[in-house]
């Protein structure tokens, strides 16, 4: 295992120290509880936005704390949900008196821990908490009898859009409804060329031959739904685009935000090659990409691979998308 770390056990606390050192203008870190806060919160009358999850997905979530996005992000162990104590502390700290929205990616661990935190925060501090659970990964067959789809790329877009709404004075209900709508109108599909190595485990989570790739991966280094022979970017783009488009029922004339996301070890030049193929497919289908992101936004440590997220947008979402944001991981308009 080759990593720029000191000790597998200290990666997260060391990184949080680094984040605190790098961005004191925008964020502050509660190192004991491993929570990243924006420096200027809480604001009376503003809905607080709390997210969090396992570490190893940087910039998600800590890199999205700041004006126009999250108020707090809880950092769990590598690929492991944070614990309720963290979410509770964050929830109380960002409460501006009008409630707090939890943005939770749909993994059993995250859901259960956020659930306990919400119960405890309401019981202990009377904070009104609502939770939106993102479940946009079309690689996973949804059914009443399963844990459902995973929360992946849409989480980034949701944090931006709902973050802008909250900044703008939306109520907790409005934030929740908008978040729900974003989650419903967004979908993601991912793939990997290589596995990643969790520092504490010391070896790759799965093995892939030199001519193989995994299709339908999540963001925790878990194997995907299918191992396939390596294919040209054009074919991979089709394998990602088609299920997303069909899941969302996108049709000619629809407008979307597209995110071509790198898994952490993919060079930007390859993400642009992939974006080009995806853009061509969408163009051919008459689907208009209104805005896009190309880069590493929700990653799996050093995994090589990418995911495509499409979000069907309306004017309200676009307005919130374009609103100023100032976080370490996403910034414009300010």
């Amino acid at each position: 295992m080759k990593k720029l770390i000191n000790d597998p056990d200290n990666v997260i606390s060391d990184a949080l120290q680094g984040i605190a050192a790098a961005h004191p203008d925008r964020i502050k870190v509660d190192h004991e509880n491993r929570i990243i806060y924006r420096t200027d919160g809480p604001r009376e009358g503003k809905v607080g936005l709390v997210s969090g999850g396992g570490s190893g997905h940087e910039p998600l979530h800590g890199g999205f704390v700041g004006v126009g996005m999250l108020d707090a992000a809880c950092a769990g162990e590598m690929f492991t949900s944070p614990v309720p104590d963290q979410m509770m502390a964050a929830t109380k700290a960002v409460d501006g008196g009008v409630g707090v929205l939890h943005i939770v990616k749909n993994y059993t661990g995250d859901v259960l821990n956020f659930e306990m935190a919400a119960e405890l925060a309401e019981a202990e501090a009377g904070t009104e908490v609502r939770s939106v659970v993102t479940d946009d990964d079309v690689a996973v067959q949804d059914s009443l009898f399963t844990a459902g789809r995973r929360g992946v790329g849409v989480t980034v877009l949701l944090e931006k859009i709902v973050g802008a709404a909250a900044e703008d004075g939306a109520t907790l209900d409005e934030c929740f409804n908008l978040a729900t709508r974003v989650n419903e109108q967004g979908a993601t599909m991912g793939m990997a060329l290589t596995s990643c190595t969790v520092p504490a485990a010391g070896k790759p989570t799965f093995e892939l031959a030199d001519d193989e790739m995994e299709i339908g991966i999540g963001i925790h280094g878990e194997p995907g739904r299918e191992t396939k022979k390596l294919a040209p970017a054009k074919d991979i783009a089709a394998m990602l685009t088609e299920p997303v488009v069909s899941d969302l029922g996108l049709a000619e004339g629809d407008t979307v935000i597209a995110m071509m996301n790198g898994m952490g070890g993919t060079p930007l030049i390859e993400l642009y090659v992939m974006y080009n193929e995806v853009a061509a497919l969408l163009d051919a289908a008459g689907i208009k990409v209104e805005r896009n992101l190309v880069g590493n936004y929700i990653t799996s440590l050093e995994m090589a691979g990418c995911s495509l997220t499409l979000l069907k947008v309306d004017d309200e979402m676009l307005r919130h998308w374009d609103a100023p944001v100032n976080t370490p991981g996403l910034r414009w308009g300010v």
Partner: protein
Amino acid sequence: MAALSAFQAWMSDFAEVIGQNAEHLTDLDRAIGDGDHGSNMTRGTSKTAALAEAEEFDNSAAYLKKVGMTLVSNVGGASGPLFGTFFLRLGGALGDAEDIDAATFGKALHAGVGGVLARGKAEVGDKTMFDAWSPALEAYDAAVTDGGDLQAALQAAVDGAKQGRDATVDLVARKGRASYLGERSKGHQDPGATSTVLLLESALRTLA
């Protein structure tokens, strides 16, 4: 038997066993999950094992609830709230009972497993730790009905849990991370069911 010290012995034994099996649990989780079950559990049990030395507890209930909260606050992942809730409910059901016998512990076990069910909402056959808990509880009850003592009942629970754990190998996961793999989850043993067996074996060694 003095319940509090027995429960403390349980937690100390369990911490040791988890330490020894951490890599195995992580390997199981790497196959169908995210390769952290061993480290998740270790993070929790190293803390729960230390509780007895750091603090005085009035009774078993207080101790076990603290164990539960400690697991919740340190394990994270799916297993943290599940094992945590198990102990919170277990402690809640024991109250200030000073001695434990098959019946007292059985009642508490029902409460604890009920907690796992309420939190995780898994059914038997979903390929989760509940696949070990559920037959363990049934076997425990059957042993008690047959007039078995705590030793016999816990032995039955261990056997039931092992059967349940082994049965997870052939199952397609429908809950937890492994469910994302669909058919590919077949052929692998569930990590959480495996640690459940370890917990019950440890109970058999220390409580009976």
